[in-house]
């Protein structure tokens, strides 16, 4: 009994957390800062998730099981991703609130919605039924719709929120439409049962349409081409914390879902291969080329994020076509992406100017203003660009090895060249921080012990994780649990 309870502990805890913050928001607290409390509560959640992943013994002790009449699957994969998600959540909490980005008076709502979004994403990693999948996705989306407009007094924020709602609603309708088709053809909403029949129904138009629409909803969450339009505007308009949350944690959850769906396909479906190929290709090329022209760092990160989703989709394709190695590489990359993108957002958030804007030129003179932030920025840019020996390089290397093995040689060539293109704009950011002088004095960056400590940890992680660790074995275990 306790074992079973333990398995659902992460979700239960996060749900409790959400209710707690809802109650706090009802009390309408004064201008008290709840950051430390939220981090503390989040850290307990991380411990719980870690305990539920690793158990008392070594990794791999989670027994795969399907619960609740076959709609919810617990395995090492889901538990590992839950750990990753809650870790990302705690990292986001570390972005300090300020008048320029997110007013303190709405912090209780902010915490509540972060927690509900996290709850939805956790469900997503375990979803084993189309309905659960849809509900989990909507829980996440609704939380994000409100989060996006929490920066109420700013026009861009409202515009971003509206755009996000409209795009989100449309894509969710598309997804529901796809689910309806799949249900109509197979008579069941159970994910494995639906996908099992892809071998016989794979050539019918209805099934293909259903699968394509299902992936359309997923692409929206990932902000992959052609469902990427919302990302730059929403990132720019919304508060930095929410942009970071959207850019890191939310994409990891969507990646988990994509891998889950792919893993249940008995054999690669031609239509899925085609849409993945097109989307991966277009995301890589479009994201990286458009990012070159951006002067706003959050927009740039949004476009570079589209590029990174392209790489992830390459990994998903490799997983679909060659098995375990591809899953391992993709999971590895997704984990890496969360950390390196967060590091970039951390520096972005520390360097906002008086008007709350995040232009690249705000980084000018960063080298003098805060050496440690400068180092974090440079290393996160190098990691995002995939320069060895940073962890991001290993992520990309594994990904492209897997894709090459799976036979997508042109995709590998295009991926590597677009990642070469991306280096141009990443290096430009480094140059702004390291070399460019500010025309007018920029606001000083106050020292903040928590942030500096976090920076050091992130630098160490990005520098050494790929090079000095055999963690990829653990990722392989996670991939295996997904396939069994």
């Amino acid at each position, binding site marked *: 009994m306790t074992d079973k309870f333990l398995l659902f502990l992460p979700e239960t805890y996060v749900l409790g957390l959400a209710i707690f913050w809802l109650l706090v928001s009802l009390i309408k607290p004064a201008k008290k800062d709840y950051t430390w409390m939220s981090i503390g509560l989040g850290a307990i959640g991380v411990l719980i998730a870690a305990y539920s992943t690793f158990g008392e013994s070594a990794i791999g002790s989670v027994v795969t099981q399907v619960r609740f009449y076959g709609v919810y699957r617990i395995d090492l994969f889901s538990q590992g991703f839950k750990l990753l998600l809650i870790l990302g959540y705690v990292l986001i909490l570390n972005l300090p609130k300020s008048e320029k980005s997110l007013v303190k008076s709405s912090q209780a709502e902010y915490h509540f919605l972060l927690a509900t979004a996290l709850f939805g994403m956790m469900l997503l990693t375990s979803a084993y039924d189309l309905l659960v999948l849809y509900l989990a996705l909507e829980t996440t989306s609704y939380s994000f719709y409100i989060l996006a407009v929490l920066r109420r007094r700013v026009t861009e924020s409202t515009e971003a929120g509206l755009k996000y709602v409209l795009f989100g609603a449309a894509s969710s309708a598309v997804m529901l439409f796809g689910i309806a088709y799949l249900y109509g053809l197979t008579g069941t909403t159970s994910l494995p049962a639906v996908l099992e029949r892809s071998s016989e129904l794979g050539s019918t138009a209805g099934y293909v349409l259903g699968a394509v629409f299902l992936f359309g909803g997923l692409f929206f969450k990932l902000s992959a081409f052609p469902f990427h339009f919302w990302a730059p505007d929403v990132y720019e308009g919304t508060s930095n914390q929410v942009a970071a949350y959207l850019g890191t944690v939310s994409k990891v959850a969507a990646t988990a879902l994509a891998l889950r769906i792919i893993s249940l396909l008995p054999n690669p479906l031609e239509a899925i291969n085609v849409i993945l190929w097109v989307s991966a290709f277009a995301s890589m090329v479009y994201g990286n080329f458009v990012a070159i022209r951006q002067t706003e760092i959050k927009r740039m990160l949004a476009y570079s994020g589209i590029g990174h989703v392209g790489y992830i989709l390459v990994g998903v394709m490799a997983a679909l076509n060659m098995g375990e*190695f591809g899953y*391992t590489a993709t999971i590895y990359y997704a984990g890496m992406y969360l950390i390196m993108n967060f590091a970039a957002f951390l520096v972005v958030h520390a360097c906002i100017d008086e008007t709350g804007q995040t232009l690249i030129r705000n980084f000018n003179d960063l080298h003098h203003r805060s050496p440690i932030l400068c180092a974090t920025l440079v290393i996160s840019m*190098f990691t995002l660009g995939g*320069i*060895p*020996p940073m962890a991001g*390089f290993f992520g990309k*290397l*594994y990904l*492209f*090895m897997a894709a*090459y*093995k799976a036979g997508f*040689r042109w995709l*590998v*060539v295009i991926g*590597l*060249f677009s*990642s*070469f293109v991306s*280096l*141009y704009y990443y*290096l430009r950011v*480094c*140059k702004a921080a*390291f*070399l460019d002088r500010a025309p007018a004095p920029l606001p000083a960056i106050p020292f903040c012990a928590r942030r500096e400590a976090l920076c050091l940890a992130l630098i160490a992680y990005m520098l050494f994780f790929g*090079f000095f660790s*055999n963690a*990829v*074995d653990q990722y*392989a275990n996670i991939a295996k649990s997904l396939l069994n």
Partner: protein
Amino acid sequence: MGLDMEFGILTAMWVTPMIGVFLLVLIPRQYETAIRWVSLLAAAVTVVLSVYIYLHFDRRGGFQFEENMIWIDYFGVRYHHAVDGLSVPLLLLTSIIIFCGILSSWDGIKQRVKEFHILMLVLVSGVFGVFMALDAVFFFIFYEIAVLPMYLLIIVWGSTRKEYAGMKLTLYLLFGSVFVLIGLIALYVHTGMKTTDLIELKAALLAHPPSDRFIRIIFPMLFVGFGILAGLWPFHTWSPDGHVAAPTAASMLHAGVLMKLGAFGILRVGVYLLPEGLRYWADMIVALSLVNIVYGAFVAIHQTDLKFVIGYSSVSHMGMVMFGIGMMNQEGFFGAAFQMFAHGVMTALFFACVGAIYDRAHTRYIPAFGGIYRKMPIVCSAFLCAGLAGLGLPGLAGFVAEFLVFWGAFKAHPLIASIAVVGLVLTAFYVLRVFQRAFYGEPNPKWDGLTDSSPVQNTAYAILIGTMMVYGVYPRLFLDVIEADMLRLLSEVVR
């Protein structure tokens, strides 16, 4: 193989600069002298280590000082380091040049001293790593570590269109590494994704020879990818721009050592793994490098900036390395290896001299000079030594190298060789012309205030000239080391 061994002297070699970096991070930035001494000390330790390796290297060749252990099991990445006859002299070259580079920037670098030395040491650590790595992943990692600090070195401490040149250099080199990476991934997948160890890859390729088509596509990828770093025409334009813009010590390292990484990569990865590829593409390589030699020399003649003259002479001289490789005979291979070493020392000396002149005169415009020999005899003599080595004066290392390359060339392609000799004549022309116009000629009263180089810089010149002379007078010191391994490599190519 497969033995798990302890870390050894090779690890010490690439870790030493990293320890230096770590110490530098801890020293507060205002203690500039301490910073210089720490980095000089780190460089000195690597000199000692490389001399030790050079002396204790078994002249019968093969991979020695081996360290081999599993690193990332899942992908078959190994921590496998060893040196053979080709890499031993290059390690020595690198340590000498970093030592002299730190000496010659002793009073040249005045701002952000700490970061400058940190980046230099990171760069050199990467270079050491490339010369000893026998695992493709480690090789690539070190290769990138060696390439990237250059961007920051140029844009912060450089001159003459530094931001443009820095970005151009970085993008060109990274463009090359994309090709290299594609080639390596293809080889890795082709051999069954079991290992990234170059020796095991080689064994796997021998056991299951790839198709001709595979070799014909992958070899040029590796060749061009590495060739961009070696200044291969038509991808050479980053090199003069980059060298001109870079600060003195960075130019020394870059032209002296980094360009050799390209040529070394061609031999260690490209030719070693796919010898048939060289056989198939040899004529193309000869043609391209011929353009390098002759075109580089012609362009050098027309430059009015001292550093551009040397930048293009590097293009021309690095062409000789690839020219030698393309000849596919003993003399050509030996000459190519010797030229890597000789050109490294020579060009480092060139840049050290030009740096000293620029620090004092604040210009490198040749027509603006005149008669500065009277004021700076030591610098000008050192420059002359480098120039004479470049045009192949017997008794200096450059002579032996160029002699071997052309000997090999006349044996293989007499006609092409006679065209390439033009490059040599042109070298004599531009070196002596610089000498005549800038150093002798009408004394320009503007330069009466110039002082000669400092004792610290003189030490650097002495070390570099000494190295050139030792190897010029007694080339066996070099040839004995490389002979066995180069012959082994060659025997696979011409099989």
